[in-house]
């Protein structure tokens, strides 16, 4: 089997695992839905049968269509966005520890989103993502101000800076919370923990296409990201503009992170773990393969985290962001201890 065939096979397997995870996500929850119900719901979705009233009125079908379906799609879309963003940021900053959460991009987005929530800007579907993008731009500007001259800023200082930014934005958010009514405060708190199962899950059908376009644009620049690994001189030598390609990467990462955070809140470590897992499985560093693999891995991990959150807590839910942090923080520590960073002289 040629190398390309092997890589395609691995991507197909990853895709199948993602599908299984999605099915699992439709199944689990406070009201378990039988597999036969899930499959008949799916077939009604794909067959576009003018659903006979007996079936649509069924409570399970209602749960699947309005709650679990959107939730599963949202978890996949957001996980995929975070995975692809994490990979791009690691390449852009030449830093294996970079990801939206550790760099403070998610924190900035959450600040913007919660600010929009506090000031009751309507329609929320439009203003919350917009404010989230603005918050993310703020965080990105801070990072770039620090690293523009030397984009591969020393790993640990950069992450320290990112974590500080996150904490600072977190403190601002908590300050904002004090001005919220108790019911909104509850919602905002859960936002900070990264929770699915809210009415915002449905936003994925509006924001998802934008995320998908961003991902397609990342795929379009895949070769330039490969060249980015080798530094500015090689980028120019191969016909890529370092400034322009980095700007494209920064803009796409900002958008994807902000939109993802505006739906689910803060979810850490998905963006960190997905690229590393993908690299290990594919044994390739080419972005044309790594980007889809990281997106699939990120989507799968986030669905799995959400599923676990529903299984572990009886009659309640643990936010997906908490599960991903519980599992992801040890990964970050392991990477910090055994860092993959070599300098060629």
């Amino acid at each position, binding site marked *: 089997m040629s190398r390309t065939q092997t890589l395609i096979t691995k991507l197909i397997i990853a895709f199948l695992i993602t599908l299984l995870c999605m099915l699992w996500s439709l199944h689990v929850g406070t009201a378990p839905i039988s597999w036969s119900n899930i499959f008949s719901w799916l077939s009604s979705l794909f067959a576009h049968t003018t659903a006979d009233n007996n079936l649509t009125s069924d409570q399970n079908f209602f749960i699947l269509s309005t709650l679990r379906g959107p939730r599963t799609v949202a978890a996949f879309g957001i996980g995929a966005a975070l995975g692809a963003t994490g990979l791009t940021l690691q390449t852009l900053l030449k830093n*294996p520890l970079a990801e939206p959460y550790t760099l403070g991009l998610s924190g900035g987005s959450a600040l913007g989103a919660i600010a929009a929530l506090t000031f009751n800007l309507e329609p929320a579907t439009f203003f919350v993502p917009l404010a989230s993008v603005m918050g993310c731009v703020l965080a990105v500007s801070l990072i770039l101000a620090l690293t523009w001259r030397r984009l591969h800023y020393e790993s640990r200082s950069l992450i320290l800076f990112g974590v500080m930014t996150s904490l600072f934005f977190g403190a601002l958010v908590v300050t904002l919370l004090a001005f919220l009514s108790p019911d909104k405060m509850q919602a905002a708190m859960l936002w900070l923990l990264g929770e699915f199962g809210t009415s915002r899950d449905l936003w994925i059908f509006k924001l998802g296409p934008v995320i998908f376009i961003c991902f397609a644009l990342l795929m379009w620049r895949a070769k330039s990201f*490969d060249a980015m*690994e080798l530094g500015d001189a*090689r980028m*120019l030598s191969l*016909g890529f503009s370092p400034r322009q390609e980095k700007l494209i990467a920064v803009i796409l990462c900002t958008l994807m992170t902000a939109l993802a955070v505006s739906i689910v809140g803060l979810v850490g470590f998905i963006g960190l773990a997905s690229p590393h897992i993908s690299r290990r499985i594919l044994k390739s560093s*080419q972005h044309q393969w790594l980007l889809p693999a990281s997106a699939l891995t990120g989507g799968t991990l986030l669905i799995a985290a959400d599923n676990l959150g529903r299984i572990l807590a009886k009659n309640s839910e643990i936010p997906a962001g908490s599960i991903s942090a519980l599992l992801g923080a040890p990964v970050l520590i392991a990477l910090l201890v055994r860092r993959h*960073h070599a*300098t060629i002289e």
Partner: protein
Amino acid sequence: MLRLNDVSAGYEKPKPIIKNISLEIKAGEIFIFVGPNGSGKSTLLKTALGLLLPQSGSITLDQKNLHTLSLQERASKISLLESQISIAAPLTVDELLDLSSATSSNSLIKHDVIKALDIKKFLNRSILELSSGEKRRVLLAHALATPSEIIMLDEPFAHLDWRHQIQFVETLVHWQKNFRTTFVLAVHELNLAVQLAHRMAVLDKGNLIACDTPENIFTNPSVGEVFAFQAMIDENPIDGSRRLTLAKR
């Protein structure tokens, strides 16, 4: 043909690293910059690539201003391999070679560079696992496989062992003869530079001290002053190549 007209360039505006450099590098020649550490060799190469904007003066490639060319045109004419490249991702050697050309990959050239730099045995390994000399060879192969008319290499011989240094000298000569590639090198190994160069230039503290054939360069008294040596070039009795003998002044 690469031409620098009165070029000054550097990283901070008031302090240029290279000052008022004018020179011309002809198509198909092997041109080597020498000079002490910090003399501005690397800065000059980066400026010629277009990575650094000249603070004054202009650079032309075949009579066209470098900065008016499209990125693709520029890349087809000139490329640079820096002396230090930090890579964080575990790229395999094969992937790195495939990256040489942004548009098409020429399998014949690829085959040639793999042979010339003796890297066949680690094609499938990650570049992070290789020794510094092996990494250097892989990066040189990557640079040679780039289909640009002028290939600039900053300190290509650093980290190479004796055998691979000589092998690389032969490769460059072979490449220049067969593909009419123009090579612009910055080199510290004066004996290798003398063997390889058609013409050389000496830089010191950002100034161009001399630009001439190897024979004339080393008999130039101001060059002797820069390096604080006396030099003599004669014929190597073993293989008839140019031989450089140096003595402290």
